[in-house]
């Protein structure tokens, strides 16, 4: 099947022709009885996995099953922040692999994912914050990840709205800046991967929930779904907050707990906010979308839940912090808020690995920070499924690390929010 290629010229040409003739971006596929491999979960990670399976590993008789609609889960609910300034070597390799793929993703997919390396600035408010931030900066630099220290004046020059006065409860003492970090358009990531995978023959099947996983002596045999039985010897589960539920169908237990994580946006305003600002100590995440809304990330709720909604006081806590850091925002009205369900591991690092069931693979545990990893995660998960062994980058991110004591404890590396 030939896909329309996007370019400036094609846009002008279609515009002159009253925008007639644009094609659907992917087919509405019906499930076939048998595939070589099936990906469960049609978010960015799952669609990307299917794309790389087809594009790099030549597996084209594959399908992506999505119980709702493409990109309707956490891919469409996150705050689109991209960075790779993680403390440990394993994490830095993983997230920087992803960041390097973001830089060329629009060209690779012929789809504008609007990646914008506008810089991610993480604020320090206490002496402890300053020490930990500097430790991160040195560790990142040893791993080839850019990160630099800014004093309060330099931080204000980078983000002029920032209040660096000493009239707030936790004054800004400095900031760590990753200039290569930034944002991307989350929906475009799902749509771009779906379109590119579809063009390589991948079936994208929406409204198809997995209700059972059949096993035989060789391992995975078939998936029971709301749209019938689908045979496949390789199944990759990329189901975010529902990973425990899906893997539970095959009798695999995971070290995960699923929490609601909320975000909100303000009314749209003219461009005033040039970067991403994060503060872990007083919990604020803010950036401005190309539509003009301030995109604000709140924390997880206190309890496990699958409701995709959370409590207002969690949002208020974040807004309190943002109003102190950016007094200009106090009179802004908030437009909407929502929640997603995030699967959190004990060490706040993901799992991209084989499971004890042959032919069954899992990509989960991204917690509150999976969007930034979308291309790298998908790329490594496809490798793991195609070759039945992990890529060196994701080799440490197993389920067995919890048994063997090789945690990648970004949870304890406290300057990193997840």
């Amino acid at each position, binding site marked *: 099947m030939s896909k329309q290629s996007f370019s400036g010229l094609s846009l002008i040409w279609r515009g002159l022709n009253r925008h007639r003739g644009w094609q659907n971006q992917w087919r509405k596929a019906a499930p076939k009885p048998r595939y070589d491999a099936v990906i469960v979960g049609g978010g960015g990670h799952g669609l990307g996995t299917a794309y790389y399976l087809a594009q790099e590993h030549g597996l084209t008789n594959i399908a992506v099953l999505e119980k709702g609609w493409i990109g309707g889960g956490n891919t469409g609910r996150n705050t689109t922040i991209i960075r790779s300034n993680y403390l440990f070597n394993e994490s830095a390799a993983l997230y920087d692999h992803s960041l390097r793929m973001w830089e060329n993703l629009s060209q690779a997919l012929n789809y504008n994912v609007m990646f914008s390396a506008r810089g991610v600035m993480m604020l320090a408010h206490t002496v402890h914050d300053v020490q930990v931030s500097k430790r991160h900066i040195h560790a990142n630099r040893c791993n080839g990840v850019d990160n630099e220290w800014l004093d309060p004046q330099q931080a204000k020059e980078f983000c002029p709205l920032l209040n660096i006065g000493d009239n707030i409860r936790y004054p800004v003492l400095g900031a760590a800046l990753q200039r290569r970090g930034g944002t991307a358009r989350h929906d475009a990531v799902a749509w771009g991967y779906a379109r590119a995978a579809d063009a390589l023959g991948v079936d994208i099947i929406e409204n198809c929930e997995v209700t059972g996983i059949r096993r035989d002596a060789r391992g995975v045999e078939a998936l029971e779904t709301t749209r019938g039985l689908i045979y496949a010897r390789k199944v990759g589960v990329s189901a975010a907050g529902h990973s425990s539920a899906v893997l539970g169908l095959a009798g695999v237990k995971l070290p995960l707990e*699923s929490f609601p994580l909320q975000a909100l946006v303000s009314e749209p305003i003219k461009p005033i906010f040039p970067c991403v600002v994060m503060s872990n100590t007083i919990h604020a995440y803010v950036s401005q979308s190309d539509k003009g809304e301030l995109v604000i990330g709140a924390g997880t709720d206190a309890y496990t839940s699958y409701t995709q909604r959370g409590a207002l006081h969690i949002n208020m806590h974040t807004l309190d912090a943002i109003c102190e850091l950016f007094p200009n925002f106090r009179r802004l009205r908030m437009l909407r808020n929502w929640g997603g369900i995030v699967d959190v591991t004990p060490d706040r690092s993901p799992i991209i690995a084989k499971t004890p069931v042959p032919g069954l693979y899992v990509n989960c545990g991204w917690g509150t920070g999976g969007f930034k990893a979308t291309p790298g995660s998908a790329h490594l998960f496809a490798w793991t499924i195609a070759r039945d062994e992990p890529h060196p980058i994701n080799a440490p991110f197993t389920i067995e690390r919890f048994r063997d004591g090789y945690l990648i404890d970004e949870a304890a590396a406290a300057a990193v929010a997840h």
Partner: protein
Amino acid sequence: MLLIPCPYCGERPEIEFTHGGQAHLVRPAQPADLDDQAWAEFLYMRTNTKGIHAERWRHAHGCGQFFNALRDTTTDHFLAVYKIGTPRPAT
């Protein structure tokens, strides 16, 4: 915000409570006798139930007591609360 029925104090807003995770996890009597797999199961593996979940809460900014609750994680409705050390009620 949830209204949580503390078995000692009655319904109180969620901000008075801390969540204590999955209930009825019993620390093995002889941890040294466990192999690594069994110890990892105790430390890290969780049911992460989608549906009716038995969990611990503590009324931290109230009576200070721990208690157990059954909550439907697909709706956040509390179905029952019961005291620590008592078995999970039938639902």
